């Protein structure tokens, strides 16, 4: 069956998740392909576990298949309920065994501790990867401008880190003697020389192009799944979708390397989303060390939730924010146990990253700020304005970006990924070099915008006419603007617009690309501008009523706070995060003082964005790609009934069913070859239509094949029984019968046709089932699969049904 048909197969009554594709089951164990499956150091557990896999009978070990029936196929949806059921059986087996012997007890206790070990390893590796990426990216970023003499591995900041001398003057006047600018290659010494400028410009653009080209080539050749932010896919996978290779080793490797390259190239993208992906890859990798996670897709997703928390934790240096991000934005099934593990994982990751100390500031994040100036009540008005700005920006950005991405899918643009990346890189490098703020590494810019201007800050917008009094070392009063600040008032808006426009085209390129940093940059610039404006207003008119008492502490407005609020607002508008965003920002400052401004901005931004736009950017991309993602957060508020959704529809042929005791082996074999449904309901008789249970396609095929091979006397005309009531004695002349009671799942989820769809959606969301059967007065009427539900929701939302295909 062709994949293309599958995808656009919207018309066929795809109950039971449509058709199958020929993915190799072996890939489930992404790491075990190399080592012949002997990686799992709990191998004994793993093989024994298979004995109690079948979930139909109370503790029955009767069905011992060769292939495990728990393997899902690629691009299929998992059945949480069955997986959790399997986990419980396994757990019971382990605890039963552990009560028997000391060895069993040891194993049992290892079984209990193993999750923590995995989480620890994930945390350590996520932190290490983040450290490597940070160090590599800052180095590559500076290599566009020059190189460190004698120690080429140091970036500009580290190269000029220690100079055993005392100097007077602005910090950028201080020549760093150990740093070698590229124009010095040509014997040019004066940076003001136009030839030197040109050489620098060309080197900058050339280096950026080279790095981007390298990145996109590596992605294309080794791990196509490494491109993009990955968060929409992670959300989909965590909601119970199988996407083989998405968390593979190669994805991990290539994503890390290319992220260094693209951040170094200075593209308008960040590393937060990709870091979550990298952390999840680590999580997947280590989850396979322990069979109870590696073999159980539902349990593995708990691990991945914890890993994604670690990803955000290292991206922002905000462990609590990371956990809440995982809870709010990414995860689907988040039991309390996972909350605690996520927290541990995020903590460890942040701790490791802090130990690596990539920024040399003893913090896990580049833009850590620490100021404690109070804010005043009248400032709520600008904060609300920033919130509105952030919300509007979010709406416009999301719409433009989604339009552009759709264009990429539908038009010829998508055929030339390398060219596209190169063009965007060229434009980025060409346009950003002239503007000093755009030229900066984006996270350096954000860090500068967030910081309050101190004595050592020599960046343009810190050019104040300060008059220092000597009493208090933290007393930097508000002051009038100097030329540097005035120049910043047109340079910064230009940088903001450039950043905003470039990000629209960058997010969705076929390289790893996060959205947080550029979005934050836009908001931070906007906020800083507003803060500077307010500050100058306060200085010009200190006698205005609103500024009463404001100058008591010498400083009236904190522009850095405005930058933070602005960054939170745009992020809120684009991603529609709420509490996790506030907490992340709160952890960056480490003070409860600013939680109210941040909250106001986030709330206003979210409200404005929700009023004008539909979804956050991640949900937008999920819709665009047509992933089968059933959003657990959106409440289903319609009043349709199960009857309106179930297949077969009125006009369709009746439901394919198996009768309990009349089918023959041949009939079933035909059924499995002619149709590709995942689930076949078993009924008592065609007459009564009373439901007995369901049989899964894979298990049925396997069981029939085994029976043909192993059991003598089974011929095509053999009757198949799905009931205990089997004729006891062999009647001569009639072929031997076959009892397949062991593969019958006697506990399918059933609902009546009058059940409101909201309840059904709840059941799909909360119980994590794949299909449910619809009955009326005890008779089987139809079936609802997860995709039917998704399609129904999409129809109710008046989406173009053609555009939403679900794999």
């Amino acid at each position, binding site marked *: 069956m062709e994949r293309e048909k599958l995808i656009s197969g919207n018309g066929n009554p795809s109950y039971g998740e449509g058709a199958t*594709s020929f993915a190799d089951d*072996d890939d489930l164990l992404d790491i075990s392909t190399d080592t012949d499956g002997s990686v799992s150091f709990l191998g004994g557990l793993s093989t024994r576990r298979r004995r109690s896999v079948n979930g139909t009978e109370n503790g029955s070990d009767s069905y011992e298949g060769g292939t495990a029936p728990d393997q899902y196929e690629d691009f299929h949806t998992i059945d949480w309920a069955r997986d959790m059921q399997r986990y419980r059986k396994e757990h019971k087996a382990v605890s039963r065994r552990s009560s028997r012997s000391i060895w069993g007890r040891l194993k049992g206790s290892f079984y209990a501790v193993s999750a923590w070990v995995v989480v620890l390893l994930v945390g350590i590796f996520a932190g290490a990867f983040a450290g490597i990426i940070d160090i590599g990216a800052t180095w590559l970023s500076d290599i566009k401008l020059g190189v460190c003499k*004698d120690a080429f*591995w140091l970036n500009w900041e580290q190269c000029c*880190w220690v100079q055993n001398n005392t100097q007077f003057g602005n910090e950028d006047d201080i020549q760093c003697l*150990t740093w070698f600018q590229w124009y010095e290659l040509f014997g040019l010494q004066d940076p003001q020389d136009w030839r030197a400028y040109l050489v620098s410009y060309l080197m900058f653009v050339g280096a950026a192009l080279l790095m981007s080209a390298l990145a996109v080539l590596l992605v294309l*050749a*080794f791990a196509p799944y490494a491109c993009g932010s990955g968060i929409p896919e992670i959300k989909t996978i965590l909601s119970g979708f199988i996407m083989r290779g998405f968390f593979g080793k190669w994805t991990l490797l290539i994503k890390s390397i290319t992220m260094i390259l693209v951040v170094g190239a200075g593209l308008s993208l960040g590393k937060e989303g990709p870091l979550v992906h990298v952390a999840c890859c680590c999580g997947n990798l280590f989850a396979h060390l322990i069979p109870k996670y590696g073999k159980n897709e539902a349990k593995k997703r708990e691990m991945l939730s914890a890993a994604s928390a670690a990803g955000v934790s290292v991206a922002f240096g905000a462990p609590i924010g990371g956990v809440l991000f995982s809870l709010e934005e990414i995860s689907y099934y988040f039991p309390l146990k996972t909350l605690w593990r996520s927290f541990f994982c995020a903590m460890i990751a942040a701790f490791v990253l802090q130990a690596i100390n990539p920024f040399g500031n003893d913090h896990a994040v580049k833009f850590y700020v620490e100021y404690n100036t109070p804010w005043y009540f009248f400032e709520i008005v600008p904060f609300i304005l920033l919130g509105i700005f952030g919300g509007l920006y979010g709406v416009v950005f999301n719409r433009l970006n989604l339009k552009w991405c759709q264009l990429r899918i539908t038009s010829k643009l998508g055929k030339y*990924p390398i060219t596209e990346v190169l063009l965007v890189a060229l434009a980025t490098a060409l346009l950003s070099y002239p503007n000093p703020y755009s030229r900066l590494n984006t996270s350096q810019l954000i860090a500068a915008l967030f910081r309050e201007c101190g004595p050592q800050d020599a960046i343009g917008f810190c050019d104040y006419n300060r008059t*220092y009094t000597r009493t208090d070392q933290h007393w930097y009063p508000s002051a009038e603007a100097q030329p540097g600040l005035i120049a910043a008032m047109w340079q910064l808006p230009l940088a903001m617009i450039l950043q905003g426009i470039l990000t629209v085209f960058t997010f969705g390129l076929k390289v790893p690309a996060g959205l947080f940093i550029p979005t934050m940059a836009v908001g931070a610039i906007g906020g800083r501008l507003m803060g500077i404006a307010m500050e100058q207003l306060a200085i010009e008119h200190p006698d205005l009523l609103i500024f009463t008492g404001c100058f008591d502490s010498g400083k009236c407005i904190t522009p850095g706070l405005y930058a933070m609020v602005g960054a939170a607002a745009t992020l809120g508008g684009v991603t529609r995060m709420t509490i996790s965003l506030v907490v992340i920002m709160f952890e960056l400052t480490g003070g409860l003082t600013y939680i109210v401004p941040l909250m106001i901005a986030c709330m206003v931004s979210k409200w404005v964005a929700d009023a004008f736009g539909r979804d956050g950017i991640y949900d937008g991309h999920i819709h665009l790609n047509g992933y089968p993602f059933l959003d657990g957060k959106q409440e289903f508020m319609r009043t349709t009934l199960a009857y309106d959704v179930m297949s077969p529809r009125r006009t369709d042929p009746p439901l394919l069913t198996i009768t309990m005791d009349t089918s023959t082996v041949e009939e079933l074999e035909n059924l499995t070859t002619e149709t590709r449904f995942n689930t076949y309901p078993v009924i008592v008789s065609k007459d009564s239509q009373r439901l007995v249970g369901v049989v899964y396609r894979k298990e049925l095929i396997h069981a029939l094949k085994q029976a043909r091979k192993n059991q003598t006397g089974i011929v095509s005309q053999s009757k198949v029984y799905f009931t205990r009531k089997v004729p006891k004695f062999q009647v001569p002349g009639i072929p031997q019968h076959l009892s397949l009671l062991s593969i019958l799942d006697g506990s399918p989820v059933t609902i009546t046709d009058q059940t409101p769809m909201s309840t059904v959606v709840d059941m799909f969301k909360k119980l994590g089932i794949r299909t449910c059967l619809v009955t009326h007065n005890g008779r089987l009427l139809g079936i609802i699969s997860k995709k039917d539900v998704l399609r129904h929701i999409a129809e109710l939302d008046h989406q173009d049904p053609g555009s939403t295909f679900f794999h």
Partner: protein
Amino acid sequence: KAQFEDCRCKCVCPGDPHSKHKVNVTVVSVPALECTCQHVTGRSELECLRCECKFEVRSTTIIKIVVIFVLVLIGVLLAYLIALLIMDPGMLKRSETDRRRQPQEVLYQDAAEVAPGSSYFGRRLGRVGSAQKRWQHKVKQQRQDVFQDHTLLS
């Protein structure tokens, strides 16, 4: 190369308000205990009031290892990529629609064929080769999904 020390004491003092220079930055590498304004800048206790002294630590070794590691990795990947491209020049361009998603058995058979008639090393190599083939097949599938069908990650 004493200039790439792993610790520094950085004291920032505001410059003399009458002079043109605004900031006075002193950076020395001294032990933590000696990182006080008076000791580093030689000012009096009173003059030191407005100075900020910070003792900072870094590890150039980690940076060195990481950067070299990253460079080597990129180099190796690039070399491998070039090797692959030489062996199969159309690799990145070819449309795989017809050949892709071939039944897995074919690939396993390849591996099985190599296995019996050769030495341990041969088997080993064969296994590696087959693993590589499987992997390449997977990458091709991914490439198809992402770049041609646009069903993922678009």
